[in-house]
């Protein structure tokens, strides 16, 4: 391999990638006919797959949705370049997320089923009777999801670059494969809705599991065992400043808050809620909470690929001749595997990008349609009209993500993704606390959200990476008034958010500020599939 000019084209691997991509495309279009109802034109059908997915499909759908291509690329890349604190926290994060959703998600499912809510902002609107609060939740969801979609493209790009596409030629020929992949994705999402990623998730997950099992047996075998891999990583990471092999006493709080904050934030993302609301009854969510950790085990093993790459001295020189840690996983696969299996592994990552990208664009489109279009432009939109708007918006969202990656700096997408995690957690008080109590005042929640959003953004901007001197250097920062302790910015902002919400609630209640009418009843939070939907009154 000529390292100066970047990777050369690997014909066999590319052939395998193209072949599998064609199969996935066929499945994506065929999905429109899968479990097809008599009337397809509504958000319940297009945007939630008919609200009828059982435990088995949901396991694949949620697994395909939450464990994205970007995760597969970024977590090992973080392990490779900076070690445990910024990489391996993904393991405790994806463990503790399940007990957390086990507790509150069935309530959100029930109230959404009873009232026909499609998005978390729909629930906030009904519960708190506040257009400003529900719009805040919807906009936060959209801006947190957009860069996340863009980063799925980074996963595909990393694969294509290592497979040898992307070295030569102008911007157009270099990015043509990415463009085609996304155009096809947009087309079948448009026609099949949530059914497309649900079916493709089966292929994606089977490929990913196959690749991971082979990788964690074959690569350590070639490198002389896990002992040698960890020794090489320890030697490299302890010799490099600002990295960690195992978090020291200064990194404990950062590691713990990163895990907790990410776990609390994960199911605030609209795409997670979309997958949960597509299930057919209340217990599917809980049953899945006990079966989804299989993916976390896989993610943990996948993270260790970053350490394997350290031991294997994998070259991460990109097509532009500069080192790029994001290439580490595909580069390791190309270095260690025969071409045909490297092709299978590349496909697993690329297809792994398509599933979440589709669900995220559907979720963002649902938020726009229900909480912005319907709320501000067309109060009496019919279900068919809502579906039509959502389908169109899902196309625009994907075009936006593509433009983001092609025309703007990639690090900008990374910065926004980091900010997205901080932002989305600030909707937690309104959504999750709202599932249990209406004590918090709607304007107090709004004020807490606003302050936390602003503070979190400023705090993230002010973290300068020591290596590059750039802003948005990390997602941990010192806690104000707490000396030198550093914690995940999202959690610090969340604490401010809650304190403000509580204090202002006391004030607003004392001043008798109107708090709106609650559209939900206590029993709604326990409703199962057989409970009738509450008739939605036509908005005045």
């Amino acid at each position, binding site marked *: 391999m000529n390292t100066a000019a970047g990777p050369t084209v690997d014909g066999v691997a590319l052939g395998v990638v193209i072949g599998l991509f064609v199969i996935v495309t066929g499945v994506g279009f065929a999905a429109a006919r899968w479990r097809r109802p008599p009337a397809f034109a509504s958000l319940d059908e297009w945007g939630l797959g008919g609200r009828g997915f059982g435990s088995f499909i949901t396991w694949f759908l949620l697994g395909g949705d939450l464990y994205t291509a970007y995760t597969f690329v970024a977590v090992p890349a973080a392990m490779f370049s900076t070690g*445990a604190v910024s990489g*391996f926290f993904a*393991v*405790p994060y994806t*463990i*503790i997320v*399940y*007990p*957390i959703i*086990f*507790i509150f998600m069935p309530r959100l499912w029930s109230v959404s089923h009873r009232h026909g809510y499609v998005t978390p902002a729909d629930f906030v609107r009904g519960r708190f009777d506040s257009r400003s609060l529900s719009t805040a939740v919807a906009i936060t969801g959209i801006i947190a999801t957009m860069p996340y979609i863009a980063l799925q493209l980074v996963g595909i790009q990393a694969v294509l670059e290592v497979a040898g596409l992307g070295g030569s030629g102008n911007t157009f020929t270099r990015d043509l494969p990415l463009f085609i992949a996304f155009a096809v994705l947009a087309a079948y999402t448009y026609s099949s809705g949530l059914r497309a990623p649900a079916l493709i998730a089966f292929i994606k997950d089977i490929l990913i599991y196959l690749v991971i099992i082979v990788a964690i047996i074959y690569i350590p075998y070639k490198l002389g*065992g*896990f*002992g*040698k*891999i*960890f020794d090489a990583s*320890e030697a490299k990471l302890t010799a490099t400043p600002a990295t960690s*092999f*195992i*978090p*020291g*006493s200064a990194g*404990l*709080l950062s*590691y*713990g808050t990163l*895990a*907790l904050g990410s776990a609390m934030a994960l199911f605030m993302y609209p795409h997670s809620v979309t997958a949960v609301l597509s299930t057919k*009854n209340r217990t599917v969510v*809980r*049953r899945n*909470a*006990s*079966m989804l*950790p*299989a993916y976390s*085990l896989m993610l*943990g*093993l996948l993270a*260790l690929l970053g350490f394997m790459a350290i031991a294997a001295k994998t070259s991460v020189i990109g097509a532009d001749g500069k080192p790029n840690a994001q290439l580490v996983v595909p580069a390791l696969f190309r270095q260690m595997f025969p071409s045909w299996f490297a092709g299978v592994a590349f496909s697993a990552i690329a297809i792994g990008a398509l599933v979440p990208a589709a669900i995220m664009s559907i979720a963002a489109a649902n938020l726009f349609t229900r909480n912005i279009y319907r709320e501000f432009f067309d109060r009496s939109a019919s279900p068919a009209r809502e579906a039509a708007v959502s389908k169109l918006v899902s196309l625009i969202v994907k075009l936006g993500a593509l433009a983001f990656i092609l025309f703007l700096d990639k690090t900008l997408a990374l910065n926004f993704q980091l900010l997205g995690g901080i932002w989305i957690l600030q909707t937690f008080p309104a959504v999750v606390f709202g599932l249990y*109590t*209406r*004590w918090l005042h709607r304007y107090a929640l709004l004020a807490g959200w606003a302050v936390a959003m602003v503070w979190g953004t400023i705090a993230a901007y002010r973290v300068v990476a020591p290596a590059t001197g750039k802003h948005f250097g990390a997602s941990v920062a010192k806690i104000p008034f707490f000396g030198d302790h550093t914690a995940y910015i999202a959690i610090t902002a969340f604490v401010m958010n809650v304190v403000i919400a509580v204090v202002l609630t006391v004030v607003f209640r004392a001043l008798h500020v109107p708090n709106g*009418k*609650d*559209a*939900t*009843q*206590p*029993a*709604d939070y*326990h*409703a*199962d*599939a*057989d*409970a*009738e939907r*509450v008739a939605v009154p036509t908005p005045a």
Partner: protein
Amino acid sequence: MTAPHTEPHTGKIRRRKLAPATIAVVAVLLAAPLVALLWVGSYNSKTPRLWGFPFFYWYQLLWVILAAGCTSAAYLLITRTGHDIELESAHQNDEKGTDK
């Protein structure tokens, strides 16, 4: 549908009533993974090693399996014990709609 004896049109919704001891066990099962993993100081050490994995790494991977077991046990306790009670829902003609 799961419960044939319910009549959806009456607006009756059932909720599962569990014994206090069961609730306590479920709470412990769900809290255990959070406490164990967020107490990072209890596991940030290199030794003892297992199959070449430093303690920090194998301990967390082990918790993936333990946490799955805890959540499954909580799921079984919730679905297999206790009994359903019916909740009143006054959605039909109630315009006030404020609870608590």
